């Protein structure tokens, strides 16, 4: 099999999922539409969930995820290693989210502690969303990727294309700022 041979020429041991992914990407390169559908089904949940957590808007998250798929398939020629497609498209999606966050204006109104006091899960979620909205795009995205998506420092660094040291520093700043807002909201 040509596809198998192509994949097995790479050195090292990789998981079945990544090899399967490489096969699908290879088929997409050959113009196989069924493979396109399979790849979309494979990654849609993760992309939409992450975009939703960063943007805090379900509809916008779906828009961004769709845009990420479109961009990833358009720029497939830039992907050197087919096994890295998952991180490739995830990176595109996060970058699109950050771009959208930057385009949005910061909320001008000051925090109103009386309205933001968390007393239940929904109120807590609303409070978190309002506090996250106060953070700059980079800090907010770093915090979400680390806390909600549970990525490691290295993974966050890879996705955001910055050094690990920068992730560590951003995360520290984000937590400190979030903590200050959190305390203000709970007083």
């Amino acid at each position, binding site marked *: 099999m040509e596809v198998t041979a192509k994949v097995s020429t790479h050195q090292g041991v990789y998981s079945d999922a990544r090899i399967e992914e490489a096969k699908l990407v290879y088929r997409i390169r050959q113009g196989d539409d069924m493979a396109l559908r399979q790849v979309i089904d494979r990654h849609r949940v993760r992309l939409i969930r992450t975009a939703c957590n960063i943007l805090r808007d379900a509809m916008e998250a*779906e828009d961004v*995820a769709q845009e990420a*798929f479109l961009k990833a398939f358009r720029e497939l020629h830039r992907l050197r290693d087919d096994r890295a497609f998952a991180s490739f498209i995830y990176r595109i999606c996060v970058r699109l989210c950050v771009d959208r966050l930057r385009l949005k204006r910061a909320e001008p109104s000051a925090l109103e502690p009386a309205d933001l006091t968390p007393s239940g899960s929904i109120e807590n979620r609303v409070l978190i969303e309002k506090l996250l909205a106060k953070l700059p795009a980079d800090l907010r995205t770093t915090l979400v990727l680390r806390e909600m998506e549970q990525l490691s420092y290295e993974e966050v660094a890879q996705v955001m294309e910055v050094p690990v040291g920068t992730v560590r520093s951003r995360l520290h700043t984000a937590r400190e700022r979030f*903590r200050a807002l959190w305390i203000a909201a709970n007083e």
Partner: protein
Amino acid sequence: MFSRYACKRYRRLRLDSEDGVLSSRALRFLAVHSQACGECLFYDVEISDMSAAIRSAALEHEGGPEFGAATLRVVLADRQKRRTPTLKPIFAGAATAVIAVGAILQLLSASLNTTASPIGEAQRPLRQDIPLEIDMPGTFNLFDTPSRMVRDPKPFDA
């Protein structure tokens, strides 16, 4: 009482400890400091609560049922659009240059093959004089063919 530096160091290391990237010495420092410093212990609790709150606010939206089909349609339409042959500027320029060179070569070859023939004379049809048919000067129609008026204005004097 701890120095401000020790508390600052504790808080920085505390955040890093979540990833398990700390050395055993740093971990020992964290353990000793948290037992002795009430403020930093309180900070620990705050950070833990905050992290738990952020995690609990994670959304689990997976997209609508039509998302996959809609995305596939968009991607396929985009692919189809990109497959449509369009002349890129460089190819369009090259094609124009080839056509221009071909036209010049054709003109040159045509002029080289032409044989001049001095024998003979130019044929030109003679102009046929058409007299104006006007009975009297007063009935002359101003909107009549101006070419006649210019060619033979004599009827006015008749």
